[in-house]
């Protein structure tokens, strides 16, 4: 979040007030509206590596990120955005799946158990996860949105605009952990998104495509 010069001057600061001292060179930069060194968002991590879970009911970890100790300070927020898609090739199998968003031991878990239709195209999944520090004592909140399309396709691509209301999406959910929770101040924390099919079958395929994390 703070922005600095790459080069760090090791020279002791001089004493002439109107000179740019080595400490001035090494200092964090400011934003001009808020005069703050903490005003600049930063991208923490991003990956485009596809991870596929098919023909297995084992848990796959699609995104895992270690939040450095004190990174969220007293009021910072992380925003993780993840994209995936899946294909149900046959309804003759138990084609349900579970998703889990965890931060240390706090989490949201749920399952889709109503996948009745075979996908003519891959169904899209988008997850937005927000983790915010509510104070300087390590009290955090976790919440987010998860959207799953139906098997409807557009004239080109996936996702149909010609259906009213909610019928274009299979699921829209605003999720969160049960309550605010506490992490250990001074220790790192782990944010992760995990997925698993309820039953293994070769007609079931879920691919996590990418995610990125913004530090706000």
């Amino acid at each position, binding site marked *: 979040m703070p922005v600095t010069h790459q080069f760090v001057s090791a020279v002791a600061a001089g004493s002439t007030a109107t000179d740019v001292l080595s400490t001035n060179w090494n200092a964090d930069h400011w*934003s001009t509206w808020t005069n703050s060194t903490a005003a600049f968002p930063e991208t923490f991590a991003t990956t485009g590596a596809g991870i596929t879970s098919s023909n297995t009911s084992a848990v796959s970890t699609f995104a895992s990120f270690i939040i450095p100790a004190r990174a969220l300070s007293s009021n910072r927020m992380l925003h993780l955005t993840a994209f995936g898609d899946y294909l149900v090739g046959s309804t003759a199998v138990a084609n349900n799946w579970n998703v889990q968003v965890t931060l240390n031991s706090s989490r949201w878990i749920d399952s889709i158990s109503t996948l009745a239709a075979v996908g003519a195209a891959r169904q899209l999944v988008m997850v937005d996860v927000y983790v915010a520090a509510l104070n300087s004592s390590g009290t955090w909140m976790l919440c987010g949105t998860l959207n799953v399309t139906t098997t409807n396709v557009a004239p080109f691509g996936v996702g149909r605009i010609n259906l009213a209301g909610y019928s274009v999406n299979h699921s829209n959910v605003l999720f969160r952990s049960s309550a605010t929770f506490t992490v250990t101040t001074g220790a790192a924390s782990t944010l992760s998104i995990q997925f698993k099919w309820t039953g293994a079958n070769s007609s079931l395929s879920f691919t996590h495509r990418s995610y990125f994390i913004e530090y706000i």
Partner: protein
Amino acid sequence: MPMTHQFVVSGADGSTAGEVLHSNWNADHYSTWTNSTAAFPEVLSRTGVAVVTSNSSAVSTFFSYVLPARVMGTNRTLRYTLFAEDFTGTTAVVNNFRWQVTHNSSRWTGLSTGELVPNTTTRGTFLQVWITALNSSATRKLWGRFIQSSVSLGTFGMGDLTSVGAAAQRFDLQIGSSVTYTVTSGAASTFSVQFNWVNANSSLRMTAVYSVLELI
């Protein structure tokens, strides 16, 4: 938005072309892709301080920020994100509520009159608002997205992925000011988010958990 050094040199520039002059040191930084001083997003405000309204029909201001004059330039966007939670303990009361997003006198106001189901636990609300400068004449447009979860729970945590379509969400709507509007060039303007229960009752509680305002 512009990024500078914290220390400002007050002396006059020298005349040696190959040197870093005082004015160079004091200048806004550039982004390397766009060669722009305005390319860096800036977080204007974050707060994890909870604002609670219960047993009251008075208007609660969940967030208020005075935007400095010209902060949005000719084409900047503000993005506001709020996480909140509510609890309706009984249907024996008129448990309707009102949300309002205002920028000076322009606004969106929504009233929920169909709150029939008491919560078994707290319910989540997600509000995201964008305000964009459409030109250099201070013409603005406000729009956003408002989501409130149903009372359904996940396997662990809150938010029901199993419910198909609309069942997992109480509301999922796009909001906006009625038309574009104009603020006074050269003057500050106020952005705020407010809430009130229509009637006071001790079984009703809304808590604004976390807010962040970004200049993009």
